């Protein structure tokens, strides 16, 4: 493809400052230059007229579950045969890219190899989808979050890898790294979704978490964890987990420990699933009374306090997470940006910076997530100004163009899902 210059754009570069008029030249898969209007040499370039709309970095989902099927009960994921599950995951990956997410950081796969396979196919160019960091299934203890076995029923196929004791955990971690995952996920705490106060309990001992961490660190895999409980977060910090999810019940000195590690770790509350379960899941049997029993309203009230303090202390907090349940479906992930604004007090620009600049860091790139010379050309052209209304992303028709790695996934003027192939490069979004 010829070099592209996006002209007549308002550029949100990912740093969190207001969009500024400008233009961007993309050569190959990189942003080559960013300049004020009418400054760039147009020789041998195709022009993309942005029509005054906002050009920004592609979005990054920090807690992706692209193997989720909009399920009601976890066991449904286990009941999907592997072959069908690969197809569903491929569709979800494509849906995420259609929705403007040019990168995904997985928070767990439902089956051991599914995400690895999809990631590899995307990287090889055989499937459309975002950049992916593929995760293991959740490694859980007997009785931990994700263990849905029943004593009388030996035939169980779930989403988890059950591992008890340091040796079993080592084997599980080694196996998943052998199969090619980027990140190992461990459920260190329980969750109130399962039973009352389970979210405040740890499911693994120090020795068990240490074993898993030692293996992952030795073999070059990243570590992430489900950790609502204060003690679970402390275990994660002690053993140098890179990503800690939820942190609902932290208190006291844990804030200091997190602050001390702020340059090494990433956090994500995944507040969307709590919100949807509390307010929108009644058709699925989760009434207000059930939600109260789960303490979901208390968790929603607590989240701004916890994450306000974490932000004040300079921790890197990212939006996203746990979309793929029936009442918080796949493809509605951008709603998390609105939650960050309405519940956690972010400005739209701040949450979009978290979803781009911090997302690039989370993905492990030093050249992803900003509109800056030398950075990878993952770009979105958004109708209107998402720094004024972050809800724009909830309707993907507002994504006028999607570029990943310097290639258009959606060209201006083309409907990506129709499969229509443009007969020429559309040079204005007004055509």
């Amino acid at each position: 493809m010829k070099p592209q210059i996006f002209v007549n754009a308002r550029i949100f570069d990912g740093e969190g400052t207001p969009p500024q008029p400008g233009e961007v030249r993309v050569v190959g898969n990189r942003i080559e230059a960013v300049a004020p209007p009418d400054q760039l040499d147009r020789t041998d370039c195709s022009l993309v007229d942005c029509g005054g709309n906002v050009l920004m970095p592609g979005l990054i989902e920090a807690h992706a579950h692209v193997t989720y099927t909009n399920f009601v009960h976890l066991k449904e994921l286990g009941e999907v045969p592997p072959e069908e599950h690969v197809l569903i995951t491929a569709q979800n990956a494509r849906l995420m890219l259609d929705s403007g997410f040019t990168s995904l950081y997985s928070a767990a796969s439902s089956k051991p190899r599914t995400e690895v396979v999809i990631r590899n196919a995307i990287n090889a160019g055989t499937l459309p989808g975002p950049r992916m960091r593929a995760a293991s299934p959740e490694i859980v203890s007997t009785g931990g979050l994700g263990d849905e076995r029943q004593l009388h029923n030996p035939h169980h196929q779930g989403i988890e890898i059950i591992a008890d004791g340091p040796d079993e955990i080592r084997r599980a971690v080694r196996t998943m790294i052998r199969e090619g995952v980027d990140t190992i996920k461990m459920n260190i705490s329980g969750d109130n979704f399962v039973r009352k106060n389970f979210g405040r309990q740890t499911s693994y001992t120090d020795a068990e978490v240490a074993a898993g961490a030692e293996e992952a660190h030795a073999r070059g895999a990243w570590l992430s964890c489900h950790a609502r409980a204060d003690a679970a977060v402390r275990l994660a910090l002690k053993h140098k987990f890179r990503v800690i999810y939820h942190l609902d019940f932290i208190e006291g000195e844990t804030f200091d420990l997190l602050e001390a590690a702020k340059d090494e770790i990433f956090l994500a509350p995944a507040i969307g699933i709590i919100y949807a379960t509390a307010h929108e899941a009644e058709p699925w049997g989760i009434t207000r009374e059930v939600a109260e029993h789960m303490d979901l309203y208390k968790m929603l009230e607590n989240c701004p306090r916890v994450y306000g303090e974490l932000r004040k202390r300079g921790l890197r907090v990212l939006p996203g997470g746990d979309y793929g349940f029936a009442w918080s479906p796949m493809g509605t992930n951008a709603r998390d940006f609105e939650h960050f604004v309405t519940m956690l007090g972010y400005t739209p620009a701040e949450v979009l910076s978290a979803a781009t600049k911090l997302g690039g860091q989370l993905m492990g790139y030093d050249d992803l997530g900003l509109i800056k010379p030398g950075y990878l050309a993952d770009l979105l052209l958004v109708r209107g100004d998402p720094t004024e209304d972050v809800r724009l992303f909830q309707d993907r028709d507002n994504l006028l163009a999607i570029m990943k790695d310097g290639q258009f996934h959606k060209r201006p003027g083309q409907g990506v899902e129709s499969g229509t192939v443009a007969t020429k490069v559309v040079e204005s979004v007004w055509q």
Partner: protein
Amino acid sequence: MTVEILLCRTCPRDGQGEVGLFSEALQRALRRMASLEIRPVHVQCLGSCRQPYTVSLDAPDKWRIRFSGLGGRDVERLIEVAQHYAATPDGLLTDRQLPPELAARITARSPKFTTTRAA
């Protein structure tokens, strides 16, 4: 006065060829019948698949109100309710503003702030 109506792209999800047709038909009916400007917002899914044919009324700083199990006869009532919704400061509708037929179809009221109080 512009009113946002959220329409599901995937409704009914297991519709055997009908997926997405409900929102398209509703959008056409709204355009024909409404005197105020309707701004459709096409979301992937409103999470009410067990009770399909769903829309939500939504606006910044207002409660999102979801209606499920809708039919063609509900369109006029929906427009009337949308007008009331647009005029409220917070999206909460009184009993007088909600026809019983639509009140019975509310499957979610979602706040735009953390709260334990009921709608």
